[in-house]
């Protein structure tokens, strides 16, 4: 029960302090810095691509399976060319926007849906809550791959279906966490206080529970981003996710499999990209968790032994 900041600062100064602290905290974790840089590169690459600054990406069967690391070529060919002679680097970047885009939309969908359902299940309990939780159990009872397979078979493998299927399979995790958090927050005294002031369920959910649950859910989302990416890659690899001519990292690995012994780079680089990006999300999520947990702050600031 110590009072750590009894002295007060003006709002603006406080904000700039917070930013400074974040920077300091980032500097205290070199892996997080590396992760942030990698993600920055990926995002920048996607941006340049979306502004179509990357130049030629035409099929050129003569450049089929061009070797990588030939630095005499135009820089887009430094990672070689794919089976249709397109620069692998450009393909990787295009795949990045699909893969990341799907991951983002999926996570956002399941985050919003899962949080709402979970908070409702947690706050009201009763029949509604029970129904929600039982549905979660059933979804979780199926092997995840199977749900995805079903979904994609029922509705056909398209990007939007992939997103829906992934979001549905991931949603139970959010619902569970949101519900558990809500059950805990619901018992907090400030919620009781709000009820004593006459706050109804809607008010309490909006002003007290959702904001309290949000940070946990965001952390979960950042971890899930990584998971969804892996999962999408897996599905695309099986031929159930992204279909050519669209391209995603997982699909690139799958297509590269046919060239395993003749052109290893086709499968190697996209897999590596998945790994690095996933890892970056995980590392940043970790960092984020520590930043938001005062009891672990020392990890980020002190190196004294």
């Amino acid at each position, binding site marked *: 029960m110590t009072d750590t900041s009894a002295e007060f600062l003006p709002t603006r100064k406080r904000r700039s302090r917070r930013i400074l602290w974040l920077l300091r905290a980032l500097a205290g974790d070199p892996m997080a810095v590396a992760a942030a840089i990698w993600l920055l590169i990926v995002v920048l690459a996607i941006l340049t691509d979306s502004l179509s600054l990357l130049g030629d990406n*035409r*099929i050129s*069967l*003569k450049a*089929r*399976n061009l070797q990588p690391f030939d630095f005499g070529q135009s820089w887009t060919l430094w990672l070689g060319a794919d*089976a*249709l002679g397109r620069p692998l680097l450009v393909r990787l970047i295009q795949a990045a926007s699909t893969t990341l885009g799907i991951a983002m939309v999926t996570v956002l969908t399941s985050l919003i849906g899962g949080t709402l359902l979970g908070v409702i299940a947690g706050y009201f309990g009763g029949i509604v809550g029970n129904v929600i939780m039982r549905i979660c159990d059933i979804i979780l009872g199926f092997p995840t791959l199977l749900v995805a397979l079903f979904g994609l078979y029922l509705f*056909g493998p398209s990007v939007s279906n992939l997103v829906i299927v992934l979001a549905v399979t991931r949603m139970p995790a959010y619902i569970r966490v949101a519900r558990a958090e809500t059950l805990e927050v619901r018992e907090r005294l400030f919620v009781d206080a709000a009820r004593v002031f006459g706050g109804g369920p809607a008010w309490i959910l909006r002003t007290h529970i959702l904001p309290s649950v949000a940070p946990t859910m965001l952390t979960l989302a950042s971890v899930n981003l990584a998971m969804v990416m892996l999962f999408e890659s897996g599905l695309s690899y099986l*031929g159930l996710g992204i*279909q*050519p*001519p669209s391209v995603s990292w997982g699909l690139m690995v799958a*297509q590269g*499999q*046919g*060239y*395993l*012994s*003749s*052109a290893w780079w086709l499968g190697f680089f996209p897999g590596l990209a998945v790994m690095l990006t996933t890892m970056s999300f995980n590392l940043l999520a970790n960092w984020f968790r520590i930043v938001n947990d005062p009891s672990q702050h020392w990890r980020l600031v002190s190196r004294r032994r």
Partner: protein
Amino acid sequence: APDKLTVVVTDEPKSLDPCDTDLSGNSRILHNNITEALVNLSPKDGSVVPSLATSWRQLDSLTWEFKLREGVTFHDGKAFDTHAVIAALKRAQDPALACEVGLATLKGLKLNAEAVNPTTLLIRTDVVEPILPNKMSALDIGSPATPGDAKTRTPAGTGPYKLEAWTPGQSVGLVAYDGYWGNKPAIPNATIIWRAESAVRAAMVDTGEAQIAYEIAPQDGTTEEDHAFPNAETSLLRIDAQIAPLNDRRVREALNLAIDRDGLVGTIFHKDAQKAMQVVPPSVFGFNPDIPVWNYDPEKAKSLVAAAKADGVPVDKEIVIYGRIGIYPNSSESLEAIQAMLADAGFNARLEMLETSPWLKRLLKPWNKDRQPSILQTQIDNAEGDAVFTLPNRFTADGNQSTIIDAGLDKLIADGSKATGDERKRLFQQAFKYIAVDAVNIAPLFHMVTIARVAKNVNYTPDVQAGNEIKLKSISYR
């Protein structure tokens, strides 16, 4: 020399029932290894050669007589005689069993077999069937002990090898059969395993895990150990000629002109693949050598499209290209390339790669009336060597996968099927020409080759039948 040989194929056999040898996965293991048919087709010219039957003749237009080989026994000890053949024929035609051979090769034909004596057999057909012996090459004869009401997983035949074990999901083992009527095989033990990935299969020969690997992708099949052989398959795009804008012949022609077949061969397709102008390879009876091959002419394609557009054909409508994942090596790459080529010629083409089951929905009727204009990736196999195995159904009005409805063509095909000799050849050639040149409801791509990788120390050269047979008894170690 080692006494064991391992062959790696793509898929696990579906069943090992002798009546299912119409599926190449089953047939590769069974045909001429475990079970044999009355006759074989010569890999050289497609002529019919003796196997379990030593001779045959046509008694009248509806009756054939076969003389059976004597002294042949099945692996289970039962003697091979006319009863075995009659039983096998009955099984194959039993609708309850839904045998591949009955449903595909013998389709539309009622065969009635009758034993004259244990070695003489009469087969009567309900319609004229000039190539009955040819068709009999597809009917493998299993032991009469094979159950009549269910498919078997433990076939017993007369072949040089008998089934040792089928470990589901893993392998099929064969051992040489001591009582074989012909020459003893050189290798007493053979194992067939399956791996879905071409690169893996290829690597397995290198690592010594297998001695023969089939269906190697072009990019892997570049070493000395790789043998390319024509596999009787012709790849093509089937154009849905009933839906606008594809109901306009100019548009279909433009499609054909827009595809750079020369660019595809040697890159995505194997360099030995031949540009196709019709749906059967030259080895097939009825092949028409006079049909011109499509040239790559995007300019002409553009002008044809423009002309159609001027006539009010909705050429800007989106055309879907339905592909089937894994139909042949590099199947999706080939369509990606083709899609790009079509786009270059001004087509609004979208690619959709499908798993087998949804692809079949597109291939087979019934189709939705207001469907999108589409092009479908497919390939047609004709290992039997006669045009009749290709034309009906695929190109006749009543066919369940035909996009042509044309009475004249139907008549050509029906007449050809009944005719023999040069007349048969002429009619079929005419039919092929009509399909390729007048109807243009296909964009033929290539007469395909399969690549098999054979270990250096193994004496085996795959032939045109290697897609359906592994002639284990002819294989030996050097």
